[in-house]
């Protein structure tokens, strides 16, 4: 079968993709504040609109009135514990499952699961199916028949770069190699949307980094929107700025948390033995208070000057501000919204 030439120079983008690059997160979530929406809209047009989506498995509500808006060219991470509804949401989005209520629109289409519309999306499940004894080439040929923009040349190039044999049966690959192979196939299908479940599960750190860079490059090279589901925050931290947290089927919160966490700050302090810390601990702006002997870590929300005045009133030996990681931002956001984040992310 003749290979299709890569479009938009994406073959080149892949070649460059092994170099680290920064993600430009720009998804938006609706649930908590219109501010998210406004920020996200600046980055791209609304391409995926999920409105009041509901999915029941008998009496269990797996997706509970979820509304999300995902802009073009963004990467949204779906985060949640096992059973939170991430996979179900992705299966509904990709047309595998039928929703019991609500609406999905891809590019504004009212029938998002017509074949012509589904040519724009690729669903990569946690444990993807492949034909018995099929090699990457066989699967690439198959996907080439399904997705008109499939770039078979890039599949070969990327497989070679990752030391994957195009002709070796996929069943003989390790779990990580299989994951790499399918991520390659998913990227090279050149669909507009990619829905991945547990996307980096099974990949070693190097392969994970390579794949993340490939995602970034692909998003730079063309209009490419990715929705990834994971239960590990660390996997998504450096690649998705936009996260939607799912819990018991519903969206707890969603949006660009780096932007949102602007008023959340973290301080590390050392106090003398006789210092009285109860006033600081009980202050309403304290999101987190961690005490290790006289070494205190504080996460604050809102105006930090008032807290700093309280801290300085106790004559600290040392006070310094340190940067927040994504997990801490989440915790702050979630606890600010009234959730016990440890129950959500544990």
């Amino acid at each position, binding site marked *: 079968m003749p290979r299709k030439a890569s479009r938009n120079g994406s073959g080149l983008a892949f070649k460059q993709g092994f170099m680290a690059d920064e993600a430009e997160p720009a998804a938006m979530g609706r649930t908590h504040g219109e501010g998210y929406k406004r920020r996200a809209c600046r980055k791209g047009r609304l391409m995926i609109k999920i409105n009041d989506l509901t999915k029941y498995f008998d*009496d269990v509500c797996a997706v509970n009135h979820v509304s999300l808006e995902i802009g073009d060219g963004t990467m949204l991470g779906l985060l949640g514990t096992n059973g939170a509804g991430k996979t179900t949401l992705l299966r509904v989005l*990709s*047309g595998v*499952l039928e929703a019991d209520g609500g609406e999905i629109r891809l590019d504004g289409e009212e029938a998002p699961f017509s*074949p012509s519309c*589904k*040519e724009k999306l690729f669903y990569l*499940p946690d*444990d993807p199916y492949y034909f018995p004894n099929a090699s990457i080439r066989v699967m690439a040929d198959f996907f080439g028949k399904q997705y008109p923009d499939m770039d078979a040349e890039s599949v070969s190039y990327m497989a070679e770069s990752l030391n994957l044999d195009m002709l070796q049966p996929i069943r003989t690959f390790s779990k990580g190699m299989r994951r790499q192979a399918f991520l390659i196939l998913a990227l090279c299908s050149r669909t507009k949307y990619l829905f991945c479940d547990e996307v980096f599960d099974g990949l070693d750190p190097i392969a994970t980094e390579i794949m993340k860079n490939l995602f970034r490059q692909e998003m730079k090279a063309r209009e490419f929107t990715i929705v990834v589901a994971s239960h590990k925050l660390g996997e998504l931290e450096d690649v998705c700025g936009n996260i939607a947290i799912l819990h018991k089927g519903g969206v707890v919160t969603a949006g660009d948390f780096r932007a949102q966490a602007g008023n959340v700050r973290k301080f590390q302090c050392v106090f003398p033995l006789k210092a009285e810390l109860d006033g600081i601990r009980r202050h309403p702006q304290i999101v987190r208070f961690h005490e290790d002997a006289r070494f205190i870590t504080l996460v604050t929300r809102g105006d930090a000057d008032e807290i700093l005045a309280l801290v300085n009133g106790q004559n600290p030996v040392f006070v310094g501000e340190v940067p927040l990681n994504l997990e801490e931002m989440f915790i702050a956001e979630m606890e600010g919204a009234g959730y016990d984040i440890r129950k959500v992310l544990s």
Partner: protein
Amino acid sequence: MTSEKYFLKWVKEAGRGHVVAFLSWGVLAGYALMTMARLGLDTESCFFGIGSQELLWICAGLGAAISFLEYFYLLQPKKLDFYHSLPVRKNTIFWGRYVHGLLHFIIPLVLVVTACGLFEANLDVDFLPYSSSYTGHGILAFTAVFLVFYHIGIFFLSICGNILPAILGYALCLGYGHILVENVFVTWAETNFHAYYKIPLLEKLDIVLSPLFLAGHLTGQNLFDKQEVLEYVPSALHVMAVAAWIFLPLLLFSMAREKRRTERVGRMFALPLAERVAMVLLSFLSGAWGGSLFVELSGLSKTCPVAGCVAGALVGAMLALAAHVLLEWCVGSGKKKLSARILRRKWQLALECAAAALTGMFFLAGASSFDSFVPEWDEVEEIGVSIAGLDMDYEGYMRALEKGEQYETKRQLDKYALTAEGKDAAFAWITSLVSENGMTKADSVEGAGGVSKVTVRYRMKNGSEFYRQYPIGEGDLQSFASVYDTDEYKDIAYLAGQIRRVSDARFQWSDGVTDTVLKLTDEEKDALLDAYGADVEDMGMENLRQHLPLGFVEVTSEAPYFSNRMVVYPFFTRTCGLLGEYGVETEKGLADYSVRAISVTDVSEKGMARTNSKHYEEPDELEAWTREAVLKEFDLQPLLFPLDYSREMKIEVRDEATNSTVYVDGYAR
């Protein structure tokens, strides 16, 4: 891309792995080779199309196997996620596989049957005129068989979410109708209807509700004669039933495919409605079957039918409840407790229990009208009568007395099908019999003080048939003489008219030990038949109580299936006289032969066991036993002229004429 190309792409895609192709082409090619090899040796009893049991099993098996191979993906979540996320309609994948499976059966079938047809046409001149019609009928009939089993398979894979219920459901579907009819309806009918012999409607139901039986009837599995096979056309009822078995599952799985929920894969049923229907059907069958089995095994209905029926209904309702609970446990999911799940479908449960319980009651309610049924005289076309022990040997008599016996009784019902004066006499006799014995069970002949039982078949002018069976006492048997003594009945019993119709008949006298060929002219044959006819006309049933036959005139002919014999009794004076003129010693019996030895074996009641065999060779013993002995061949009226069936004899006779030893079987007188 046009939609046709798009669809064909998925038909082709369905063949990935080529398992279906290998299976179907391989099996049918193997069948072709084996059949051609057999046809090379025998074209009389080897059939490659209609009448071929091997092809029936192959088509049914391929139908089931291909349906499971093509649609197994419906039960595999990974495959479903894969296929249903692709830019293709679910419809296209589904029907692409349907067409793929169908093509991979029809193409090799047409090639194989056509090749066999051409092959046999080259070998067998008799087959040539039928070659195209037989081949065409074969292709159509076996394609229909395939479609029945293919569609049933797809149906169960569409409604089930797991391979185990799909297989069990398929197997149960094949047997459900048969179990329901034979083990429930027939059992209840036998239990409640005293005059029950068989109900043609239930027999038809048994066939049309059982795909395997139906496929057998469609493809002529009950035929063995080549001419019948070549000219076979299935009945309209069977063709309609097959069409229903093809189109109903097609319609149902088309609807099920639309409603099927992917997330229910892994559970017993992919459709909640299918779950409910399956529960209703299985609970009802379990209850009704269990109830009828209980009544049959307990024997309660023999002492008190109403009590038996009530007990059966209670057992049936309890078993339906148990089956419902078991199925709820099997299909149950979620966090609800079993007790809550059992009661979630209260009305359904009540319906299942009530249906199971009322099945037996329904038969009990209809018992009276069934037993007292006598059709309107002017609606009856023909009456078939069979009295166990009349015009049959002792072994046939014993068989005919068995419960539900079909062969011997059917043979007699077909033979003694009365349409003229015999019908009128039989109708009058049966009417009086029903008023006397209609409410007594025919199986309890001895208990009711009866001597035998009579089976009656009414063939109505509208084509329908009704069967009844009644016990008869000595008085009834005596009054049956009014039927027996009609010319119509005797003509059937003694075949005089039938023999006359054969022009090239050859006659041979048999006295039970040796045979003598009669060299008769046509005039002598006519004279013999005339004399025999006159003797038969003059005889009465009561004569048979006093005399045993002297021998037989065996009549053979080149006419197909013709082989008959004229029984000659001592009171057939005209016949005996003529035979004497033709050189036959009609009075010569066993005592006139040189008997060398006799073995006498004691036989238990109803011939179940043989013990205590004694061998006699002494002249005085031989003389005594020879006087006692009656040849088994002469035992034609065990009811009217019973012998001592507790002693069987094996008699060694020396035939001086041929200088040979002849062994004949007999009973004591």
